[in-house]
């Protein structure tokens, strides 16, 4: 028997989660374009921010990520729809992918995908050894924080610290590629 989480059962939360699921691929594509080709992607941050401000804290605190992603997905989707209409280049694949996996993150274009793999390789090489080790154990090898802590003889808190530091560094390196 499944147990429902009352925090996730609020109508607004469900709505946000629905928007997230529906438009997640577009949102990922937008963020990817903005990070790697900031001049190409329109800046929708202010619009996302203003809509996020309008929601009551009591609602959004139930599941902030779902709300933010829901709103961001909607804003991006609307912008892309406007863009598509103006350019008359509606992407039918995007519609097909709209209900797809949430972890869609790699770019669609093969050249871009390879470029990203190269960037990840370079980013990994730039990380200090401990950060690199922990990141590989968790992200590549799929270990839990506890398992990674046992392998490296660190405690779990230290492992989580290395992971968030490594992720921040990788993000910076991916963005720096454009500068």
């Amino acid at each position: 028997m499944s147990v429902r989480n009352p925090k996730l059962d609020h109508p607004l939360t469900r709505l946000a989660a629905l928007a997230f699921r529906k438009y997640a691929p577009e949102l990922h594509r937008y963020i990817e374009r903005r990070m790697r080709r900031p001049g190409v992607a329109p800046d929708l941050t202010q619009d996302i921010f203003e809509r996020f401000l309008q929601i009551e804290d009591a609602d959004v605190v139930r599941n902030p990520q779902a709300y933010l992603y829901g709103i961001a997905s909607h804003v991006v989707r609307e912008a892309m729809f406007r863009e598509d209409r103006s350019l008359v280049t509606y992407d039918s694949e995007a519609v097909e992918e709209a209900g797809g996996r949430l972890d869609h993150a790699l770019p669609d274009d093969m050249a871009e995908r390879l470029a990203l793999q190269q960037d990840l390789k370079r980013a990994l090489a730039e990380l200090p050894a401990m950060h690199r080790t922990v990141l590989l154990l968790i992200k590549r090898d799929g270990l839990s924080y506890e398992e990674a802590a046992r392998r490296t003889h660190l405690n779990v808190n230290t492992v989580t610290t290395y992971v968030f530091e490594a992720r921040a560094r990788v993000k910076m390196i991916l963005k720096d590629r454009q500068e």
Partner: protein
Amino acid sequence: MKLQGQIDRLLAQRASEWHQILENATDSQRAEFVAWLKQSPLHVQEYLETVYTDQVLKHIDAERLEDIETLIAQVAPSVVPLGKESLTPGSLPKGEGRNRRRWTVGFGLAAGLALCFSLLPFAFKHFEAAPEYATALGEQRTIQLADSSIVTLNADSRIQLRLNETHRDIELLRGEALFKVAHDPSRPFTVQTKTAIVQAVGTQFNVYERPNGTRVSVLEGRVKVTPLGRSSAGAGATRVAPVTESLSAGQEAQVGADGTFRRNPKADVMKTVAWRERRLIFDDAPLEDMVYEFNRYSQSTRLTLDGVPAGSHHYNGIFDAADPDSLAALLAKEPDLTVERRNGEIVIRKR
């Protein structure tokens, strides 16, 4: 441009930390996260990019070129075993050398060969090197001891460990370290500097050794501080009898080079340990202290004061520790100071 880069780095770090916290967040943490998002569109953007990066990271080293066992072997020296054969605290004479390998040479021939042979294994076992850990300028390092205590070394710092079944003794030879002590009442955890001995059982505290004394800040639990009352200040110097003082969470004290113990009632210990995030937080700090702090972090740029009287300038502010230029930019606006940049050095002079 450079300043912007530093801000971006701190923001990226914060967003990534939030992503981590939200995996198991409490209601109050989620509320705090929402408040953070609502502070600025930049925070929203950073967080969205962080989530994207996290997804992308699932594809890292997809070709599996990195050998994880080699990497683990590389980082393993950071893990310090708590061996039964370790040194007994206080069993060794104090030395000046950094690498204190004290192979005993004190066995006289008169003691006879038989005695030498019988003592030799004991001597080697007992006088093996106490491990030392150090960081260079700008470097920070975290070391976990086998008892699960964690030592985080700030830049330009050095510690020596003496661990055994009854004691956990650490000497802070230079710089600053944060100690998160695993609870074990049977083995007191002691940190010694030139001017003080700090003892804890299960707690978290920061110790900063400077030429003018030792600052002790307690984040969790309670520590006992015993000033050592050095008498090296000359024939007329007053020797202060050691009196053990107690510090609890949120409290901070300074032990002077002469052994004086002074509590700092205005201390904010979370600001004291902002160095973990490479932030320097100053509250009405004298300029000479700020320069000293910045110089611990930067290998490429040194700040120098030339003719600026001590105590003449005080500032509040939060800085990126790796960015001495930001302090120079601030000082350049002072009507009575000049800032000159030359190869690897920023010289601040009295106008």
